[in-house]
Every structure is written in structure tokens, then in C-alpha cells.
């Protein structure tokens, strides 16, 4: 187990290297003139016809390996370069947005995982009954709909009509509290900081803003977790040890909750990685729709503006995150499965 984790750490540099090469090679498909648009996107700025000057200024006509090594040299020192689309160094851009996305992802994962697992278990327990069919159809529909359409509909209903959950991350008043000198930013997560600073208004306001994006993400990813939980649970319910538990006289409720669910969750844990991967993709759309300033929105922006250091940075940080998550997955895998823990 420990070995496995260490092994993963050793592989990590190769993967990171691979990611940088991959993303960099995509960027290098563009010519220097085209890459200049990374720096300039307003034609009015090009009056002096100084494109060539700019190109050599930014070193855009150097051979790729020089450009790459210049960049990678910075990376080694924690410097991912300057993000034109954010107007900040990439690392700063990402770290300033990271808490927002983390907050969103964390809060989204809770209903997704809880709801998805709960419904999945229920669906499996009621296998082939009406409940199962309905849940399956709803989940398939949830899966079959573009996220942004959902997002806009959620926005329309919960903000446009009901006025409950506004877009953005905080309203002006709450933002003012957060900016004030007395407010200490412990974590960057608004809800958490609000609690720590005993500012109930901030907590409330942050929640209001989170619900829309969360609901949107949840609708899509519920169905994913649900499906996996359901089939894993169905399989588990057919295992011999379930029969053993029943034969002991264990009540059905406990058979399901104690004996089956934990085992059924083991394979579910393994999809946490892919789910987070997808969730991060979903975040790109949801954050754009809700004007929620996080890494997703930044990624969308950076990609559209061909901000290659930005994209590279997001990709790098996303892969850091994923590798971290996979580590956590491996550990939690061990925690629920003693067969691995005791290896």
C-alpha cells in the first residue's frame, strides 16, 4: 500500500513532464504571429506595426525547445509564467481562484456523492421495480442534457423567478465585509471563513451563491455515481456473504447498510478520480454560466484567449489535483478494504 503510494510519487514527475509536453506541443502548433494574439487581442494596439518587435520581445520565434526550456526552468522554481488572460502570474491567478473552485467542488461533491450513493443503493435494493425504473430514467435524462442548458434553467428558475440564488460568488455587502480589515481570510473558502469569523451573513450569502452551481453540477453527476453505485450494489447483493449475513438473522436494513453498502462502495471509490476529472470539466461550464470566478472560468477564458501559460498552468494544477485525489482515493480504498490495507 505504502509502496504503491510511493510508486505513484515516483511516477509523478514523468506524468507532469508528459503533461507539459502535451500541452506545450498543442500550443506550438500555432505560428508566432498567431501566438502573438496571446499577448495582444486589440487590433488598435498594433498600429505601430510592431508585431515583429513584439514577437522577438516575447521570444516567440525561438525554437520550441528553447521556449519550452525557458518555461520549464521557471516551473521548477514554482514560476508558471505570466497569464495574459488573467493579468497575473499564473500561479497567483490559480491560487486566487482555487478556493472558489475548491469550495464549489467540495460542496458539490457532498450532494453528488451522498445523493448519488443513496439513490444508487435504493435503486439496487428495488431492482427492477417501479422506483428503480423511474430513478434510472431520470438519471439517464440528467446525463443526457447539456450542462449549460441546465445551468441556465437553474439560473432562470432560482434567480430569475424566485430570486433566491444569485450568480457570482458574493453579493456586494458580503464582499465588503470580507474585504474589511477585521475579517481574517483563513482559508479563502467563504463559508468556512464566515464561520470562523462568526459572520453569519457571509456564510449565508456565500451559500446562496453556491447553490445554483452545485445543483447544476449535482444533476449531472448524480446520475453517474448513481449508476455505478447501483450496479456495484446489485453485484454485492448477490455475494455469498450477504446470504451469510441474512442466514445469521441480520435484519435487511443492516444487511444493506452494514454488509452490502461498504463493499459496494469499494468500486465506487475508484471512479472518484474520473468523476473529479469530469467535475472539473463541468466546472468550466458551470462557472462560466454563473459568473463564478474560479479556475473553471479562468480555464475557459485562458483557452479562448490562447493564453498558453495560463492553460498550461491550469492543466498542470489540475493534474496536481488529480494526482492528489487519486492518492486520496487509494488511501480511502485501503481504509474501506482491509484486503488492501493489510497488504
Amino acid at each position, binding site marked *: 500500500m505504502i509502496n504503491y503510494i510511493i510508486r505513484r510519487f515516483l511516477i509523478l514527475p514523468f506524468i507532469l513532464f508528459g503533461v507539459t509536453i502535451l500541452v506545450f506541443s498543442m500550443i506550438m502548433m500555432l505560428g508566432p504571429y498567431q501566438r502573438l494574439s496571446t499577448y495582444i487581442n486589440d487590433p488598435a494596439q498594433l498600429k505601430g506595426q510592431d508585431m515583429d518587435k513584439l514577437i522577438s520581445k516575447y521570444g516567440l520565434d525561438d525554437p520550441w525547445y528553447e521556449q519550452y526550456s525557458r518555461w520549464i526552468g521557471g516551473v521548477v522554481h514554482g514560476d508558471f509564467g505570466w497569464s495574459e488572460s488573467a*493579468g497575473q502570474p499564473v500561479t497567483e491567478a490559480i491560487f486566487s481562484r482555487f478556493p472558489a473552485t475548491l469550495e464549489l467542488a467540495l460542496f458539490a461533491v457532498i450532494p453528488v456523492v451522498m445523493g448519488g450513493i443513496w439513490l444508487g443503493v435504493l435503486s439496487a435494493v428495488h431492482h427492477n421495480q417501479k422506483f428503480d425504473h423511474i430513478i434510472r430514467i431520470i438519471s439517464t435524462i440528467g446525463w443526457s442534457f447539456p450542462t449549460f442548458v441546465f445551468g441556465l434553467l437553474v439560473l432562470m428558475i432560482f434567480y430569475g423567478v424566485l430570486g433566491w440564488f444569485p450568480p457570482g460568488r458574493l453579493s456586494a455587502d458580503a464582499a465588503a465585509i470580507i474585504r474589511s480589515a477585521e475579517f481574517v481570510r483563513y482559508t479563502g473558502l467563504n463559508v468556512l471563513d464566515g464561520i470562523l469569523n462568526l459572520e453569519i451573513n457571509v456564510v449565508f450569502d456565500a451559500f446562496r451563491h453556491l447553490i445554483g452551481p452545485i445543483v447544476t453540477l449535482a444533476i449531472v453527476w448524480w446520475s453517474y455515481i448513481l449508476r455505478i453505485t447501483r450496479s456495484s450494489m446489485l453485484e454485492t447483493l448477490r455475494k455469498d456473504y450477504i446470504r451469510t449475513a441474512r442466514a445469521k438473522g441480520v435484519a435487511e436494513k443492516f444487511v444493506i447498510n452494514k454488509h452490502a453498502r461498504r463493499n459496494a462502495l469499494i468500486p465506487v471509490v475508484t471512479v472518484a478520480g474520473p468523476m473529479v476529472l469530469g467535475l472539473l470539466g463541468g466546472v468550466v461550464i458551470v462557472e462560466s454560466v454563473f459568473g463564478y470566478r474560479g479556475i473553471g472560468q479562468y480555464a475557459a477564458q485562458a483557452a479562448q484567449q490562447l493564453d498558453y501559460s495560463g492553460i498550461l498552468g491550469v492543466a498542470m494544477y489540475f493534474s496536481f489535483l488529480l494526482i492528489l485525489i487519486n492518492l486520496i482515493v487509494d488511501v480511502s480504498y485501503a481504509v474501506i478494504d482491509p484486503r488492501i490495507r493489510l497488504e
Partner: protein
Amino acid sequence: QEEVNSPNTFTYVNIGDQSTLDPHFAYDTGSSEVIYQVYETLIGYDGESVKNFTPLLSTEVPSQENGLISEDGSDYTFLIREGVEFSNGNSLTAEDVKYSFLRGMISDRSGGPIWMLYEPLFGAGFAGLSDVTADVVGVEDPKQLTDEQAEKVLAVLEDKITVDGNRVTFHLESPYPPFLNILAQGASWGSILDKEWSIEQGAWDGTAADIVASHDPVKEEDPLFDKMMGTGPFVLTEWVNGDHVVFNRNNNYWRGPANFKTAIIRNVDEWSTRKLMLLRGDADMIYAPTQYRSQVEGEDGIVVTTGIPALQNMNMILNWDITTEGNSYIGSGKLDGEGIPSDFFADEDVRKAFSYAFNYEAFIEQVRMGEAIQLRGPIVDPLLGYDENSKVYSLNLEKAEEHFQKAFDGELWETGFTMDLVYNSGNDPRKTAADMLKSYIERINPKFNINVRGVQWSTYLDASVRGTLPASFGGWLADFPDPHNFVQPFLDSSGYYANRRGDTYKNWADEVGINDLIAEGISTTDSARREEIYKKLQKMSIDNAIDLWIDQPTKSNTRRTWVKGWYPNAVRPGVDFYSMDKVAE
């Protein structure tokens, strides 16, 4: 009756972002809009006007009448207002003013706005510090200056702006009529900085030795990139690029404090979100593109002001000299029906035929939803030289056919042609304009084929610079409200857009005297003569169908009814928070 939401905060929801907060670096609307709230200029425009000025940090608007402009029109003197403080408490002095302009001219980043100071101060042909260094000490790149050379250069620069007590005088090379317009531009290059504070931040320290280090900064390493210290009504509180900018009121503002404590500019790209924010009252004012305006127009509590003139135009630049090498947009590259030759648009009849094959009326009515006026050449309403009765083209397929038949001595009509009309993806009006041309031209002769192609911005830019596009779209937003700012880029052989028409055009423009006319126009103080010149240039543009002149869009403003005190101005970027208030009906 509705209550005002958050009466102490004004929220303006816009799209896009800011690229820098340094007034000498900024050259985009997003940045200027922010800078405008914090920095002030010597003079400004008077309300909605783009011609009349009002004194700001100088106590009077210079004119020949009040003697602050010299007889020959080349010296401009400003009397600096006393008792004005920067928001850090430092007093404003004439030295601050001189420092501000010198610092701007020294930093002069490549592709930046400072050419607007060099051209009047040093004359035509001077567009930046490098031109001065080349001229004075023969060094092309200011970064290569030795200390000694730098001293010389600084001396030349300092000669141009002199201080005498509270008087600051600019010594122009020759008369330059739009000079006051340049200084009055609401933000950016004309802003007055606090010298002491700026030097503390690490900006140019006032010495010649620091020129090399301060010239052409990398944006993010520019010391004033993310800090501001002005005399204006607001103080920057927080800038989160691409998301929001927060201002707090400057309580010591010399004209008295603003009406609300906080002003916020939020950047939200999604229209639906902006719209909902306005409808919910969480936004006081939003950017509403014309096409979606009908969605909010007429809603309770919302007002829309339309028809605000904008010094902006859109045309289709016809390439007289298409680069054929590696060009995939012109088919075979020959006049054989399968493509177009390099000089396709050098033929006047082709240009005219194109000009007659565009439905200007439908474009303005349907795409612009009536909020535009047809262009009559590069110069827009209400600048000098604009004549609303001048000749324009209109959709006329017979005329178009006639010209097509004449083109290339009738050969074109026989062989037909195939070409690509390219626009940058995502720009719907351009796509529609291209679709329109295609649909009419293909109707004229079945041998005419136009493919409308959308490419991404970077490709578009690259191709238009390399000259491979047969026709490309141009759009210009004025730097200052003077016809020169339109004719120069559009018609002058050295202009930005002339470059896209290739050498054929450049030579032609020189031959027919366009360049001379432009040069005369900018160095003449006589208004009547100027008008004559610009009218002539307008006429030449139309008569020769240099480009396909499409339209001048107007702007609109969408806000809650509780917003009072808003007024439009065609030149100023963004809105003037200081003038506004929030009051329930």
C-alpha cells in the same frame, strides 16, 4: 414604488476585463473605464459634448482667446489648480503634471497609446521614444542608450514641456488641432500622477539614467500595473482582474464627495446572467448588446437609452494586392472562375460592384436593429468632414451587374470567380455581412462563388497582416474625436488599414494625393480648410469605393430607473460614476 437596492453601492456589470491600471500602458476600453474613476486630466469634455471642454486640474481651458495657446498654435499653457490633493494627501503641483507626461513618453510601451503625445510634440513621423532617440543620438532602440545619450534625450524631452510656477506649457512642433482632444481623453495618457508616490512605487525616477529601465516595461513588471493614486472622485479598493473592480469614495475630492460610498464594476460575460442581475436589481447598469436589448426593454424599473453616437465604424477592407503565396482563400489565384487574381480588388469596377451588392438598409435595420447609420467614408458623425448628404451606395443589383460586366474588360463576367470571405469566429455582425454579400453576389451571376468562412481571431489577425485575405473587416474606435484619427489609419499609405490593402493601394493613394491631403489636414488650424480637406477625403473614399463602407453603430445604455445623473459621451470610455446617484422614483 420600488425601493433602491443597496443605495450606497453602485454596480455596473460589463463584459471583458482590464489589462492594466497604468494609464500610460492602458490602451483598451476595459482599463480606461477603471482609470477614469481614479485619475484626472487637465481638461475634460463638457458633459455629452465631444467638442467643448471643461477645466479639471487646470483652471482654464487654453485657447487663443485667453492667450493660453500661442499665436502660431504651437504652445499650450495650463494653469494648475491649487489646493487639489491626491487621495494619499499629497498636493498636486505643476511638477506632478510635467512628471506625468514625461513619464508617459519615457515608458512608451510598444503598441501603446503614447504615439498620440509624440506626434503633436515632435511632428509627423514621430511615433515614440525610439524615433526621438534615433533623431537625437542615432540610437534606434532606447534600451541601448548610454547614460550620456540618455541625458541628451531627456533634455530634448524636457524642452517640450516646461514649468513656470503653476503654469505648464507644451511646446508643439507645429500646430496640431486635436491636441486638446488628446489631453481631454478621459483616461489613460493624459492622466496626472503623483510624482512622489510614483517614484516610491518604482516608476521612472525622473533621471536620465532610469530611462533605459523605465522604457517599454513588461506589462506585469510595470510598477503601476496594479496600483493607482489619483486626484479623482474614487479610490481603488480592490482589483480582481476579469471579475470585479471595487472603488471607494474619495472623501476629500476637490469637487466634493461622490454620491455613493462604493462603486463596483463587475465583469460577467454571460448575457443571461447580466440580464437577470439587472432585473433583480443587483446590477444598477449593465452592458446590453443591441440584439438582446429587446429582452429588457419595457421591463419595470429599467430604462434604455439608445442612439448614443459612438466614434466607431465598421467597414470591409478590400485587399488591392492579395498575397498569393500560401493563400488558401483565393482558390486558384487566377481569373479562371476557380479563384481570384491577386489584383482582383485593384479593379475599381469590382469594388463598386461589391459596394452595390450590399444591403445597407437591411443590415442596419435587422442586424443593428436600427441603431446605426450608414458610413459615408471613414469619418463618422459628428466629426469634421462628415456630411450627411454626401453620396453613398445602396443595394442596387443592376448597377452591381453593370460594374461586374465591365470589370477586367468583361473577362470576369465570363469566367466568374470563387473566393472566401473570412470573418473572425464569434463576430455575428461580420458573419451576417459576409452572408449578405454572398447571397446578393451569387444571385447576380451563377458563376460567382463566395464561401463564407469563420476562422479564429489569431488566424484572422495573422492572415490579415500577411495580406492573404481578399477582404477583411475593419472596425475603428476613435482615440480622440478628430477626423484625422479616422483618415490616417484608413486612408494614409502608412496607416494601419492601408497596409491591408497592399502596395497597389499605397502607391495609388500617394499618386492621387491622399497622403498630402491628410498631412495638410493635421497641420492646418483653419477649421474651414480642414473641413474641406476631410470632405474631399470622404468623397474620394466613396467615389473610388476604396473599401466597402458599412456603418457607424450607435451605443445604448441600460440601467435601473433609480439611476440618476447618467449622461452619454461618445468619446469617454465607460461611465462617469461621479455624476450619478441612486434615487427611488
